[in-house]
């Protein structure tokens, strides 16, 4: 008897994912990418095979975005998309029709495999688990090594657990909603690239030294890097706005993995952001001062209570009966307005740190790098993704303007602080 064909799984968008389809523009979509660089060139046929084996285990990741009358929803794709060769720029714009086919791309170039995600699908943590599992399966096929299902690599013979598919925002929303941040902040504006070319500048530094220097100032690596970024942004603003009284707050948005605070193992979005910054009108800051400001602000902001209060208003809005009954096109207008006013305007740029990436020890010898790149904001040219792997920290700074002003300030600061910085880019020369 022929096996009955399973109906594709479909899911409502989680609370954080709702905003991204509405905020999508003709030339911009909120996307990010995780890449694994292997010791040898990637075999696209084996990568396709690995993807075919991995996709059924992640029905909430290998999805396409579809519309209904009132909401968007995600639907499992019948077959995983073909793996494609990478482009000269990462995160080539995901057009609406691309996302309607599949909201995830798997790419290869020389010795690198990359997975690019539309943000409605998952967040950095979920994306890393999927990419790790895919890479592990690729290593199994390419090197005939038995990779254990540890360090986040999922067992492909298992069915996905219910908790992996849940919307954790709804589960953990509380009664108290914090007011939304509406402070006007410094927004860097450069000369946009005419063809929207996305420049990626990768800086590689020693993780051990970074830990040591962060600890010496009593801060975490994320706080240290955020302070460094703030320092560079403050100098950039000082050059562009000489009159101190006219300068605005500089804020860096730090995504916080809520699984660490609330528990759970959802493969969908479960992230909230903390906006950390400094006011340049108060005077100049020394670097240790900035580290202390960032460290303490982060300590205050990243608590279970505060994070719950930050995502609760969004859940309340989603539960609002009037909003629920509004047709999708009307919701899109409202959500886009919300995104433009409180989504991006409240921060100068984003720094997302995935932290130290641990892999099962069997696959470690075959992997050289794990990188994380987040796309630029719709109206801000810069963003930064950070990962650490094998004792190296990878700082990926993206930009869609012509001048590498922030990159120069950031990486030369690291050099002055005593780091040996190796730089790579997709410069067009």
């Amino acid at each position, binding site marked *: 008897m022929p096996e009955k064909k399973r109906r594709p799984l479909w899911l409502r968008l989680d609370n954080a994912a709702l905003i991204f389809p509405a905020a999508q523009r003709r030339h911009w979509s909120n996307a990010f990418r995780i890449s694994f660089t292997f010791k040898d060139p990637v075999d696209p046929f084996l990568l396709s095979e690995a993807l075919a084996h991995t996709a059924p285990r992640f029905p909430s990741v290998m999805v396409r975005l579809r519309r209904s009358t009132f909401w968007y929803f995600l639907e499992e794709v019948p077959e995983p998309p073909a793996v494609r060769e990478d*482009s*000269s*720029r990462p995160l080539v714009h995901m057009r609406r029709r691309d996302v309607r086919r599949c909201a995830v791309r798997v790419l290869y170039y020389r010795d*690198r495999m990359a997975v690019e995600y539309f943000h409605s699908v998952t967040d950095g943590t979920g994306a890393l688990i999927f990419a790790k599992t895919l890479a592990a399966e690729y290593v199994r096929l390419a090197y005939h090594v038995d990779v254990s299902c540890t360090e986040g690599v999922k067992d492909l013979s298992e069915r996905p657990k219910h908790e992996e598919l849940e919307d954790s925002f709804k589960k953990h929303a509380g009664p108290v909603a914090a007011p939304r941040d509406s402070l006007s902040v410094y927004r860097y504006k450069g000369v946009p690239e005419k*063809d929207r070319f996305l420049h990626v500048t990768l800086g590689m530094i020693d993780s051990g030294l970074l830990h040591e220097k962060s600890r010496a100032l009593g801060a975490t690596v994320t706080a240290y890097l955020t302070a460094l970024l703030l320092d560079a942004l403050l100098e950039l603003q000082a050059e562009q706005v000489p009159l101190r009284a006219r300068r605005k707050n500089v804020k860096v948005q730090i995504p916080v993995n809520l699984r660490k605070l609330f528990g759970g193992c959802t493969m969908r979005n479960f992230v909230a952001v903390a906006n950390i910054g400094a006011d340049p009108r108060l005077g100049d800051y020394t670097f240790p001062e900035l580290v202390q400001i960032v460290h303490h602000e982060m300590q205050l902001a990243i608590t279970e209570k505060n994070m719950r209060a930050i995502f609760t208003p969004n859940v309340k809005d989603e539960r609002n009966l009037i909003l629920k009954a509004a047709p999708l096109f009307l919701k899109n207008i409202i959500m886009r307005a919300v995104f433009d006013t409180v989504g991006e305007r409240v921060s100068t740029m984003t720094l997302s740190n995935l932290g130290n990436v641990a892999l099962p020890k069997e696959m470690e010898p075959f992997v050289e790098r794990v990188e994380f790149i987040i796309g630029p904001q719709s109206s801000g040219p810069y963003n930064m993704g950070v990962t650490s792997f094998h004792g190296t920290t990878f700082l990926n700074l993206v930009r869609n303007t012509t001048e590498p002003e922030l990159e120069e300030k950031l990486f030369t600061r690291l050099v002055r602080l005593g780091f040996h910085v190796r*730089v*790579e880019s997709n410069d067009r020369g």
Partner: protein
Amino acid sequence: MYCIKCGVELQEGAARCPLCGLKVYHPEIKETPAPGPYPRYTEEDLRVKRLFVPFVLTVIFLIPLVICLLVDLKLNGGIVWSGYVAFGLLTLWVTVCLPLFFRNRNPVIFFPIQGAAVLLLTLYICLKTGGHWFLSLSFPVGGALILIIETVIVLLRYVIPRGDYRILYVLGGAVTAVGLLCILIEFLIHVTFRVPMQWWCLYPVAVLGLLGLSMILTAVFPSLRSALHKKFFI
């Protein structure tokens, strides 16, 4: 290799520092180009962007065209005045929109096409109004003007380098030719409409002739060129 300005280590084969743009150079190390972390830049994504604008413009052109044709058909039972709109829009579309469909918008090719569209419009007006002036006036005048401008475009594009003083010969010759064309225009008006010769053409001939001649003289005498440059440089 390191950037001597920023102090960062650069990727193998980098031609310049991605931070400050400084060229990478070491007298004793010969850098050989190495594959970068991403494939070479291509314009693969621009095709969609390039075709989107002319496509939307074409739709915008089609909307008034269809409305006018329908209204004309409804009111007059045939094409009475909407033909003028249609040919006018076609001329505008050929001028504005057609080049946008192509990456290489060579004026040597597009200008005669645009000129032909204008001539087509005049032919339609001539036929619709029962006139007899297309072959005796519109076609020779339009044709001559297209020929003069096309010659200038070809010379400037393929013969004379940019910034070369010999451009003055071309422009001087073209201005003089347009002046002489005025004589032809008045003569053809005289022949076509039986209007007596007023010799108004001598005014533009004199002005354009002097202008053209002064350009040619400026091109001939380097000292004059230099004096004018000193007086009027920007």
